[in-house]
């Protein structure tokens, strides 16, 4: 029996090293991609400069090729340097710090919205599980709800939030309205994957629980919910990005200050006095999205590794 234990332990060790190697490789690939992108950017700039931007007048694809002057496409070095400069208005903190703070603000909105969305989505999935009739009835609307560009209604939500929530004992913060948008974008993938995961139980396990005369609640908590965890994580990865996007767009359309959305809007409107800042803010937003999904992947690894389970993609 000891040799079997050794065997399984050796296998686990192998799997872990393989997984680490995979992760390292993916980080390397991403880094290479960033470098290649930078080279392509610089290369295109150099090319355009050398022919005096003649490519913009080429037939057919001319429209698709941006001009390469420093205003439209600031040099990469300038963009990177900009992170360390204080933005023109407020001297003191470097731009990088401002962007980081704004990113944190946006992250908080997205996280709160995500949390509510997960709870709502799960509740909806559990409700649909109880009744096939309800499931069949609600699915088309769930799908359709995602075609409603709610993000476009964000200003309404924000205004409505400040006006109608006056009955609350505290002041309704405007960023809460943005969080609601993030909630809306989260709950759909969670609900859809949740119902699939809850139903993805082994028929033998279902019969086992019936043979124990287990109550509905017991079956839900001891069998169906644990079985749905891999599916939920797949949804979380999608929802994480969606929540961030919802937060940024919500901020922009709702005029909510403090986050990346406002920063991007500001730098876009003052583009001509410092195009590098816009690029810097956009890079910040890109990194925020990656970090958000990265956190979910980390959580997934921790939860599933303990269960010796397989994760879905990536």
């Amino acid at each position, binding site marked *: *029996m000891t040799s*079997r*234990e050794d065997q*399984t332990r050796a296998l*686990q060790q192998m799997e872990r090293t393989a997984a680490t190697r995979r992760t390292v490789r993916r980080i390397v690939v991403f880094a290479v991609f960033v470098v290649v992108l930078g080279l392509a950017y610089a290369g295109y700039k150099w090319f355009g400069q050398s022919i005096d931007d003649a490519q913009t007048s080429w037939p057919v694809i001319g429209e698709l090729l941006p001009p390469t002057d420093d205003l439209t496409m600031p040099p990469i070095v300038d963009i990177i340097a900009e992170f360390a400069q204080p933005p023109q208005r407020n001297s003191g903190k470097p731009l990088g710090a401002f962007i980081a703070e704004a990113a944190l603000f946006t992250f908080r909105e997205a996280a709160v919205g995500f949390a509510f969305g997960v709870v709502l989505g799960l509740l909806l999935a559990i409700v649909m599980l109880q009744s096939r009739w309800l499931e069949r009835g609600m699915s088309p609307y769930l799908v359709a709800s995602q075609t409603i560009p709610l993000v476009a209604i964000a200003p309404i939500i924000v205004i409505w939030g400040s006006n109608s929530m006056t009955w609350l004992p505290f002041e309704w913060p405007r960023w809460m309205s943005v969080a609601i948008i993030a909630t809306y974008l989260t709950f759909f993938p969670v609900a859809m994957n949740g119902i699939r995961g809850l139903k993805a139980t*082994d028929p*033998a*396990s279902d*019969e*086992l629980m*019936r*043979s*124990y*005369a*287990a109550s509905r609640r*017991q079956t839900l908590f*001891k*069998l169906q919910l*644990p*079985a749905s*965890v891999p599916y939920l994580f797949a949804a979380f990865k999608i929802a994480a990005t969606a929540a961030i996007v919802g937060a940024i767009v919500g901020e922009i359309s709702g005029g909510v200050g403090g986050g990346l959305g406002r920063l991007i809007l500001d730098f876009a409107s003052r583009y001509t006095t410092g195009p590098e800042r816009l690029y810097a803010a956009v890079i910040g937003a890109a990194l925020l999205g990656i970090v958000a999904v990265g956190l979910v992947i980390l959580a997934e690894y921790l939860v599933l590794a303990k*269960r*010796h*389970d397989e994760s879905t993609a990536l």
Partner: protein
Amino acid sequence: MTTEHAAVEIVDMDKYFNQSKPNEVWALDAINLSIETGSFVSLIGPSGCGKSTLLRLMGALTHPTNGQILINGKPADDARTDRDYGMAFQHSGLFKWRTISQNIELPLELMGWGKQDRKARSDELLELIKLPDFGDHYPSELSGGMRQRVAIARSLSFRPSLLLMDEPFGALDEMTREHMQDELLDIWRRTGKTIVFVTHSIPEAVYLSQRVIVLSPRPGRIASDIPVDLGERVFETREDPRFFEKVTQVREALRFEESPQ
């Protein structure tokens, strides 16, 4: 305390699926069966004969169309709520997110046993199935045979008097299978349970049980009821001429007219 009732008592039982519908299936016909407490009985028959259905009927996972099923003198449903029986299937059905101990303790959790009691019982059972060091492992780390042992331990955890087993060793290779059969007999001897065992394998049925019940092709009827008296099973039993005689007898009993199935 001697039970007056037989462990399983089935009277005039028929089972139809989807009755009166175009896809009606007549699964079982006029089953009359009585199984003594403490005995080991096998159910065998061709594919589709309804042996798994019969087992599930005993376990109140489905209900008879006509007739009666009594477990320990009670209707099967009551026996289920009283948790009078444990079940084991071909797929061990262990929850992959629970450790081995947690899997064994699952029914006990559902019944509201306290943490100490559960731990004591699962440790006890791990000893019984000879896997004392594997409590904190996960099912994915165990072989198929080991998982089946855990499934059997789980089915014994709440001390049911009756064990219903549906081809639990079907997915195992021959050598592991024979090993598991001896383990099961050992457990049977030590615990005195009544065991109803469904199998496809004639040697397995003969080796394990005191009584082999042969079902006919659909609709399943009890075609033969063959007693097996080979005494205590030892290694040589499988090579004993009397074993082969019994196997042949069962095989003959399984020879039915060519029926479309």
